[in-house]
């Protein structure tokens, strides 16, 4: 069988680009901002790093010096991409928003680096979400 590459960076790139195409104002979440985050999808055994350079968002290999790290299973990541947001955070009035809170409390979704890098987390959440 042919070797498989790592599709996560490509998926994230397509998702974020698609969201910016639909909502051009979201490009402002990238321009002028700096930050380094990791996304680790444990059950798929894949990860990537996201670097806000001030001009663009680069998706790279997992970073050694990330300020913020998301660690979750694939299905949780998919929920994160379509959870309704309120003030940039998962809306607790929605079923998906409450699921995210439960997963954070029981450790299914681990986010390290908050509250210090809360603005970076909010920027990423708004870039990921298709809502």
């Amino acid at each position: 069988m042919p070797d498989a590459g790592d599709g996560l960076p490509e998926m994230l790139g397509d998702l974020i680009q698609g969201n910016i195409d639909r909502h051009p104002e979201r490009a402002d979440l990238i321009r002028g901002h700096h930050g380094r985050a990791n996304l680790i999808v444990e059950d798929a055994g894949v990860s990537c790093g996201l670097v806000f350079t001030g001009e663009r968002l680069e998706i790279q290999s997992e970073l050694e010096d990330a300020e913020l790290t998301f660690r979750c299973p694939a299905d949780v990541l998919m929920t994160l991409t379509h959870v309704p947001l309120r003030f940039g955070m998962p809306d607790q009035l929605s079923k998906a928003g409450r699921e995210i809170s439960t997963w954070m409390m029981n450790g299914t979704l681990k986010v390290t680096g908050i509250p210090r890098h809360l603005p970076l987390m909010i920027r990423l959440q708004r870039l990921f979400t298709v809502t």
Partner: protein
Amino acid sequence: MAMFPSDAWLDEYVERINSSKEYEEAAATWEGDLAYVFEREPDKGVAEDVWVWVDLWHGKCREARFGVPPEEGEKARFIIRAPYSRWKEVIRKELDPIKGMMQGKLKLKGDLPTIVRYVNAANELVNIASQVPTEFVDEK
């Protein structure tokens, strides 16, 4: 028992899509066609890439065609492609297609934000495929 991949397998798959309440509910607002590409693996009995086109509309499959020419399949709104063996893993539910995409084992061409909105419908399509009584071409 239908051979995968084949026209007969596709017929059975479409029949099951159209009788699935779960899919109908999950894809109630979906509008768009989809092409599956089962990539060639000559040593497994799949000599050439096989293109399958399905027209999915509001929770039903309106039309499906097996063995469409690539130039026709390429016009589909979404294309999911993988080697035959990967599809076999998906149908046997040994490979979750979302994880497979994250791992680069399945490739999606099309608007990803749309797909993630309908992830439950995509999962139902896999569940339905796994329910088709299937004989795989490399096991006959």
